[in-house]
């Protein structure tokens, strides 16, 4: 992977003086994203693209984008892509994967899309052990429609549709998707990670890679829930928003592995 | 020439199969045929009926208000279809389960103890065949032999051990039909 920068020396012999440590992943398209500055959607996109590069599966990857801020995600990946109806990405991905069994199909869904309107589709995709990978962005809010309460909004959180803070007695409790899906036999990998600092971002990437490996091995349904920020709708600077993920979201949504089947554990153990 | 036949009874009395057998036989004789069941939410024990039309010409409506022939295998079917049979038509009554008598004089009525006949030859499940035999006696849409050939051709191979018994029941029903006088 690593390429080299060269400096021409006096005797016209090329000598490497520095190496490439990090570059933009190839599985990302050149298109600039429409995301707000500091939005962690961009980080999640980048991690997925890095994993597609490292696994060498860009050419057989198919993305199913959701409705929400990431509705145009297919513009940002250089892979085949589809745009599903709100919440239906796992159903559409099922159709795609069933007729393209050799492809690598993944959905990229936010919390309104996956946890609210699309909960039936994602649960049944998991129930069937559908060989797809779900990247689930939990930022505790509806972003695209301007910051309404989501199923994942935490208790007391102020949103434009819970102006006094989420009252769980009236609106229910925050929804724990990684835990919920881990209870289904068809799920082979269900974990929660966070994108609030570089250490956690690196851990998140490892999880995304395992999730795709689970699909490549034909094991079943894999999902990575990523705690993410929404600086604009939270009314914070991007850096403060990451602190809020750490201080307010992580205690509500504990990071961890909720389900890792033995086949994946053994593989990790060998490494 | 077009003949419409309604076969009715309890679910499980072989109503739909009896209708299909007539339909197959009509098809095998090169006639135009349709078969349509009633279908409802009850899966077991409800009433079932089907309408069969056998015609020399293309068939329009697959259902009829008043059939040329009705086969009533139980009392509710008798009560429903006895008044509807077209004048000059035929009503087959399963006397084993229906004690009521029709007072109609404008149709041919054959009372056949279908359950008893079927049981005599091995299984009450063949009551539908006794009724069909009686039907053919009064309305010779095709010969009894033709129907037997159709039964042979369309009965699943695994059930061919039942062919002989079915044949006997059909013949018995046919004889009952032949012996029944038609009102003048």
């Amino acid at each position, binding site marked *: 992977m690593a390429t080299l920068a060269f400096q021409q020396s006096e005797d016209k012999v090329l000598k490497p003086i520095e190496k490439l440590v990090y570059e933009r992943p190839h599985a990302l*398209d050149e298109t600039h994203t429409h995301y707000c500055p500091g939005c962690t959607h961009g980080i999640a996109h980048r991690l997925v693209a890095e994993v597609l590069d490292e696994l060498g599966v860009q*050419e*057989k*990857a*198919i993305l*199913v*984008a959701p409705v929400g801020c990431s*509705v*145009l995600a*297919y*513009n940002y*990946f*250089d*892979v*085949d*892509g*589809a*745009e*599903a*109806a709100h919440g*239906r990405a796992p*159903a*559409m*991905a*099922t*159709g*795609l*994967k*069933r*007729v*393209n069994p*050799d*492809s*690598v199909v993944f959905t990229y869904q936010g919390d309104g899309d996956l946890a609210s309107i699309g909960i*039936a*589709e994602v649960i*049944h995709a998991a*129930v*069937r052990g559908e060989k797809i990978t779900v990247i689930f962005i939990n930022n505790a809010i509806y972003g695209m429609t301007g910051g309404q309460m989501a199923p994942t909004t935490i208790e007391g959180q102020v949103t434009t549709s819970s102006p006094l803070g989420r009252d769980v007695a009236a609106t229910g409790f925050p929804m724990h998707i990684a835990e919920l899906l881990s209870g289904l036999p068809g799920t082979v990998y269900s974990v929660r990670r966070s994108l609030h600092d570089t250490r956690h971002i690196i851990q998140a990437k490892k999880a995304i890679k395992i999730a795709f490996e689970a699909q490549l091995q034909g094991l079943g349904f894999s999902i990575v829930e990523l705690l993410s920020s929404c600086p604009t709708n939270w009314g914070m600077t991007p850096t403060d928003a990451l602190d809020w993920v750490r201080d307010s979201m992580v205690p509500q949504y504990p990071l961890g592995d909720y389900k890792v089947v033995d086949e994946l554990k053994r593989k990790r153990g060998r490494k | 020439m077009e003949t419409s036949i309604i076969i009715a009874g309890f679910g499980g009395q072989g109503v739909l199969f009896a209708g*299909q057998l007539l*339909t*197959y036989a009509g*098809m095998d004789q090169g006639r*135009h*045929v*349709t*078969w*349509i*069941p009633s*279908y*409802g*939410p009850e899966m077991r024990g409800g009433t079932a009926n089907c309408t069969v039309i056998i015609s020399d010409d*293309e*068939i*329009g*409506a*697959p*259902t*009829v*208000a008043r059939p040329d022939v009705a086969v009533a295998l139980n009392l509710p079917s008798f009560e429903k279809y006895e008044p509807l049979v077209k004048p000059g038509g035929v009503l087959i009554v399963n006397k084993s389960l229906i004690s009521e008598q029709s007072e109609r004089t404008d149709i041919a009525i054959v009372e056949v103890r279908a359950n008893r006949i079927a049981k005599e030859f091995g299984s009450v499940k063949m009551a539908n065949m006794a009724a069909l035999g009686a039907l053919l006696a009064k309305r010779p849409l095709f010969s009894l032999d033709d129907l037997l050939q159709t039964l042979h051709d369309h009965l699943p191979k695994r059930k061919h051990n039942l062919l002989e018994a079915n044949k006997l029941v059909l013949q018995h029903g046919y004889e009952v039909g032949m012996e029944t006088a038609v009102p003048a």
Partner: protein
Amino acid sequence: MAKELLKGNVAIAEAAIRAGCEAYFGYPITPQTELLEHMSKRMPELGRTFLQAESEVAAVNMVYGAASAGVRVMTSSSSPGISLMQEGLSYIAGSEVPAVFVDVMRGGPGLGNIQPSQSDYNQVTKTAGHGDYHPIVLAPSTIQEAIDLMVLSFDLADKYRTIVFMVLDGAIGQMMEPAELPPMRELPTERPSWALTGKGNRDKNIVTSIRLGAQPLADFNDILQEKLAVIEKNELRYDELYTDDAELVIVAYGTAARVAHTAVKRLREENIPVGLFRPISLWPFPYQRLGELADRVPTFLSVEMNAGQMIHDVREAVGRDVELDFFGRPGGIIPLPEEVEDKVRAMWRQQELAAQIN
């Protein structure tokens, strides 16, 4: 191949398989369930995709996914299930991927009942989802025609990259008639160039119905309308009986047309000059041909198994200057030929009376 005695729902399923259907996604609902059951047995035997979805909503989106992959795909349902599929239908239309739907209609509104009906005429012909489009809608009235139109549905869906609906009622789904199935087609070895298969060495493909700018969406709609205009020109299908000398024409499709057929034959024996016009394509609707008939025929009767849905298209076709009456039975009742005959006799008496007065 010889004729076999075939049940409508089963014949349709097998015809779809032989037409090259590679994937089926569906959800059980009476009166089309035998279709799904036949698929559940046959598709895996052939190494093709069958999946019983968790809902009609999921089923239509699975269809959308497989259609995006460029395979011949279908689902089947009945009226309330088709209502649930409206969302996916609109997305499929907006993405221009081919997909085939079978709607074995039942009585409505709401849960209604499971009896034969034509209650979905409006829902399938008048866009079947939000946005400016129409699916092609084909309505067979015999099982042989259902088989033939099923094969045609896949061809038309591919040809125009559009949704094709075959609509029938529970009676055709449940009845048996002798019919001949088509031979088994070879499946294509290659996917269309636009299909999602993984990009490989080509540029990436995108299947989407989103066009955020007003102008791009307007442009897309213009293209869509042009395509619909071509379909309207090329894909008209209808059948006529005794219309040459008819002075009263019944317009009916599906089972209602069969009932009308019986009535027309009997009425002709009474020397009533009645004819039958049977639209086979409900969209595109044969406005022009009906309009031509209206130049000569003074009276029309729309016979439907509903409270009057197609009649509005008939009115548009025949204009305001001719008589147009309606006979229909909503609620899942198949009208009787006798009822249609009574209606026609009454209309004919009126017509003759009017002729005498004039």
